[in-house]
């Protein structure tokens, strides 16, 4: 099963994890959470703004999950990504991958987040006290 969610509102990683854990088919679950850092290379941020290209983002993330599911024979794959204005400490993205054994879940999870970072159409802007800056791509 693949589930992709792109949303403005905050999400609760613990709740999402609990739901994923209910599935009894797999023996391994790997979870990645990317969050808003308070201190960036440009200083202490007040907020982080995330812009996105809705239809393309949904399409690319779903396709990435589908490729990972096929390649590593995943039983479950869940990806959630936020847009809008976020505060430091809030979760931006969460990727859960589940398979029979751990190696597949680890590899698939890293593949998904790496692929998403260079292909999914989201753009971050750091908001500071007196200025704001678009984040440059770092791979």
């Amino acid at each position: 099963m693949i589930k992709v969610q792109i949303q403005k509102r905050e999400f609760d990683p613990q709740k999402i994890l609990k739901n994923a854990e209910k599935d009894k088919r797999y023996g391994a679950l790997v979870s990645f959470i990317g969050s808003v850092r308070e201190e960036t290379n440009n200083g202490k941020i007040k907020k982080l703004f995330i812009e996105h290209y809705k239809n393309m983002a949904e399409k690319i993330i779903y396709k990435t999950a589908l490729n990972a599911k096929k390649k590593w024979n995943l039983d479950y794959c869940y990806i959630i990504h936020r847009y809008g204005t976020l505060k430091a400490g809030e979760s931006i993205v969460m990727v859960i991958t589940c398979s029979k054994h751990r190696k597949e879940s680890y590899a698939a999870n890293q593949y998904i987040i790496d692929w998403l970072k260079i292909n999914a159409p989201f753009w971050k802007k750091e908001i500071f006290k007196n200025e704001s800056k678009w984040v440059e791509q770092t791979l």
Partner: protein
Amino acid sequence: MRVLYFAKVREIIGLSEENIDLPSNVQTVEDFLDHLILKDNKYDLALSNKETIHIACDENHVDKDFILNNTKEIAIFPPVTGG
């Protein structure tokens, strides 16, 4: 053709989207970028450093030599920074 702009490109051009009829001399993405650059200073400022500009046609990433003849929607944006 529906043209979408995102992030820094959107801010510099001052528009998130517009409709543009393709001139007959425009075939590829590169031709289209050149057409926009000549249109106005704002477009020139936003798009002249083409190496930092990424393109999607009908929601798929494409290279600058992609031929636009059946494209309904083109998105122009800086490198993505999600995740």
